[in-house]
């Protein structure tokens, strides 16, 4: 039983290590690319978000994605970071860089401007998801590698508006051990 537990734990550690290196494109609420959740800011309030390519660990020449905006906000426009781009973030966005960008650090892609439709975190605004998905115009989500200009698929991270607290349950160590039969 202990061996099985150890193997399970080792697999979990490996899984975490792998996911930590998975390239992704994400929406952040701050320019430092760290805030992935935010509460309602008030009806009619304008806000700027930040989209970045993270964990690519290679040089990139461009990127491709779309954003699904939740009811809690209305997309207004995209503030451009780069000169050459196609589309909009809700309809599908492709962007190219004038010189290769170092994907070992987060690469800013675009800054969507939105208007908030909610003032406080109550239904139906709870857990509103901001999903990064494939660009429907190109059916691709990811980056363009440099110097080969090859497609580098990635994941799309989901940011949250009014995230619900994760439910927990009171218990004792004895009950936890009982789960594993010890």
């Amino acid at each position: 039983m202990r061996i099985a537990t150890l193997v399970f734990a080792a697999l979990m550690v490996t899984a975490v290590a792998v996911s930590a290196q998975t390239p992704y494109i994400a929406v952040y609420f701050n320019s430092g690319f760290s805030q992935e959740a935010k509460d309602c800011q008030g009806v009619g309030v304008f806000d700027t978000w930040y989209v970045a390519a993270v964990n690519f660990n290679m040089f990139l020449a461009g990127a491709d994605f779309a954003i699904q905006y939740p009811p809690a906000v209305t997309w207004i426009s995209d503030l451009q970071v780069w000169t050459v781009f196609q589309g909009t973030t809700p309809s599908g966005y492709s962007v190219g860089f004038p010189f290769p960008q170092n994907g070992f650090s987060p690469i800013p892609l675009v800054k969507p401007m939105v208007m908030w439709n909610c003032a406080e975190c109550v239904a139906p605004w709870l857990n509103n998801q901001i999903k990064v998905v494939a660009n429907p115009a190109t059916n691709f989500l990811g980056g363009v590698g440099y110097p080969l200009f090859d497609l580098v698929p990635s994941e799309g991270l989901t940011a949250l508006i009014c995230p619900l607290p994760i439910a927990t349950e009171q218990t004792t160590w004895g009950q936890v051990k009982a789960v594993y039969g010890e």
Partner: protein
Amino acid sequence: MSKVVFFAASLLLVAGVAFAGIINPCGSPVIPHLTGTPCYFACPQGDTQTIIGAGFWFEFTMNDASGNPIPAISGVDFWLIDCDATKDMSLCAGSASSNADSSTNSAGKTTMSLTTLAVGGCVTGLSPVVQGVVLQQPGTIPCVTAVYCFNVKVRSCDLNGDLLMNSQDVAIFSSHYPPTGTYDTCSDFDCNSIINSQDLARMAFHYGPPQHKCQ
């Protein structure tokens, strides 16, 4: 009789001297080495891949009208032009837009493989030119054979062929980008029948800043 023979020999000698060093357009074979139908992506700045990197190169054997090899033709005297009458390929600095790898050797031979193409526009089909002479399929003088036309696709981020990357090129590219744009083979820089972010990234890289142009 001996005078007649001597006179004829003199004439031949004079003719041989006269032809020496003058390229025979249909007597100078070019051997193409193509991998499938190569696709070459170009920029007026000439900062893209070598032609051998794009899957093609050429072998030249330069002969005069007497069939003698012509040595020491400089590598810069070789270049490529388009052979597609319906399209235009703009050349940066004309003959300097591409070069042979070296001067011809004593057998009149050289190769073209390491050059980049500093060009704008969009063509399918390249013809080799040497010292201003467009080389032709093998034949006898006077040359009436067709010019060489090798099946190579050349795509340039300089879509309007004005040899300067600017907003006009980006605008043309945008008109071909999905979902609203109409597919155009000239904006399909990697010739994969899809215009996507790979092509956009190439456009952005050469659009700059700085905007790429002939050097």
